[in-house]
């Protein structure tokens, strides 16, 4: 009789421990998943700061280089596309398009010495450079968090819990378009 009681108590304790472990792992996974979402939100904040700077920048450059209409249109379109993109891969794509368009805008601005001396333009350029820096750090932190989360999902023993509760791996923020990695072709016309 006593043996049965002891056995029952031991089983009870083991079950309790297992439950605690499972709960601990589940909570850990939830925490990490939220951290990933939070890290993405951080990137979002910095990207929005970039959007806010762009109209002012375009107006300032327009004041000096009115006829470069195509460049301005590209920037405005790219900005609209980036702001409206849904889903992480599309968002990343759109943001890279915007970076490229801005690069062309600054290349155009190089040809106008008056513009380069304009205080407003310089301040905006600096602010934009600082924002690009912040975006890259936000991206770095996001990728680190994603890696930690994905590791947790895939490593034993937490992968069992992850599978049970259907935790999906997160996407990295990286250059997805192979074309952007190629060297630009120079054409003489």
């Amino acid at each position, binding site marked *: 009789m006593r043996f049965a009681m002891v056995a029952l108590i031991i089983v009870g304790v083991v079950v309790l421990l297992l439950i605690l472990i499972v709960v601990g792992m589940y909570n850990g996974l939830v925490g990490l998943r939220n951290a990933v979402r939070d890290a993405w939100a951080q990137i979002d904040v910095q990207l929005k700061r970039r959007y806010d700077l762009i109209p002012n920048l375009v107006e300032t450059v327009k004041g000096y280089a009115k006829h470069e209409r195509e460049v301005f249109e590209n920037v405005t379109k790219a900005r609209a596309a980036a702001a409206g993109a849904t889903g992480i891969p599309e968002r990343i794509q759109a943001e890279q398009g915007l970076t490229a368009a801005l690069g062309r805008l600054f290349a155009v601005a190089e040809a106008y010495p008056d513009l380069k001396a304009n205080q407003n333009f310089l301040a905006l350029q*600096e602010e934009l450079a600082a924002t690009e820096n912040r975006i890259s*750090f936000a991206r*770095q932190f996001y990728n680190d968090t994603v890696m930690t989360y994905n590791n947790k999902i895939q490593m034993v023993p937490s992968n069992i819990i992850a599978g049970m509760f259907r935790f999906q791996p997160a996407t990295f923020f990286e250059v997805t378009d192979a074309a952007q990695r190629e060297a630009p072709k120079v054409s003489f016309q």
Partner: protein
Amino acid sequence: MWEQIRANKRKSALLVVLMAGVLFGLGYLLAEAFIPGAGLAGLLVAFVIWLVLCLISYYAGDGIFMAVAGARKIQKADLPVLFNVVEEMTIASGLKKMPDIYIIDDRSPNAFATGRRPDKAAIAVTAGLLRVCNRDELQGVVAHELAHVKNRDTLLMLMAGVLMGTIVLLADVGLRAMFYGGTGRSRSRSRGGGQAQIVILIIAIALMILAPIIAQLIYFAISRKREYLADASAALYTRYPEGLASALERISGSPDKLQRAGRATASMYIVNPLARSGLRAADLTSTHPPTSERVRILRSMGGASFGDYDAAYRNVGRRSTSILPPSALEGAPAAEQRAAQGPEEKKAQARKVGDLLWRLNNYLFLTCGCGAVLKIPPDFRSPQLKCPRCERVHPTADFKSRPPTGDESQGPR
């Protein structure tokens, strides 16, 4: 990482209890030394002091430290470079809110961080640091300090620093009072009482000598592991350990000594400001690991992740035990190092820092037609000033409170 944070909270609690013990002991003995039988009253007084101290150090500790260090808060417009660097590192470390930024008017390069919670933190850098470091090095130092904030080392150091400072103060005061007044009174009492007085006197003096030793012991309890973990975190956030490494070299190689560092605050700086240069061995009584070792570990890292730092630590010291907690190592993201950023304009940077300090000390600025920028002290009373370079006379009304921007220094329009 969570392990380290929980360990820190436990250590804080233990620390408080330990300090309380020392404080009560001191209170009891001092009271007995002056008025025999008043020991219990002394204990009670010590208890009240302790309670007040705990509350003050928890809620206002930041302010106290900043005042002791002579630090002044600055805004973004004052020094955008510093603000941008701190903001970048806030994002890279995952802190929710950017800490307040303070500047210490001192030639010796150093930095520290305080804050009982990550969202109520502050970071201070000396003017000397801003002058000698380029952007990469500054980023490394800031990353190291923010790592302390994130790992809640600052909470531990805050409690320890303030309480230890008070114990040392009490011990000093007690000693002085004893030599100037107390012993006279004891002679007027009966023989028996006189002897007990002397015993208590001896114990009190012993305690006063012990207090600094206790301070050191408690500072080891705040182990040097903390500094290594902060270095590893900084390498991860910046992806450029060379930045922090060369910053540490500059800081420890600087001949200037930090003016206002005392025993209580020394452990909170990035490099021990009281350390004598030339000491190679890891002194067991030092709060920081030797700088040369920290630099060597950072420079021999293969990548920028925690795993890389741990491997480098084991290589450099030829040890087999890890320095980082297992929770930081398992599942830690792999990270590559990045390339260095462009060189900074040293002169322009030094001038910006100088201008900031003049302005913080309430100096006024005047740009002369010859191009010289004159800095006028706040108590200047004459109605006019002669430029030392071109001898032109300027009326006092022309003095401005902000330094000139690029436009103005091209001469009057």
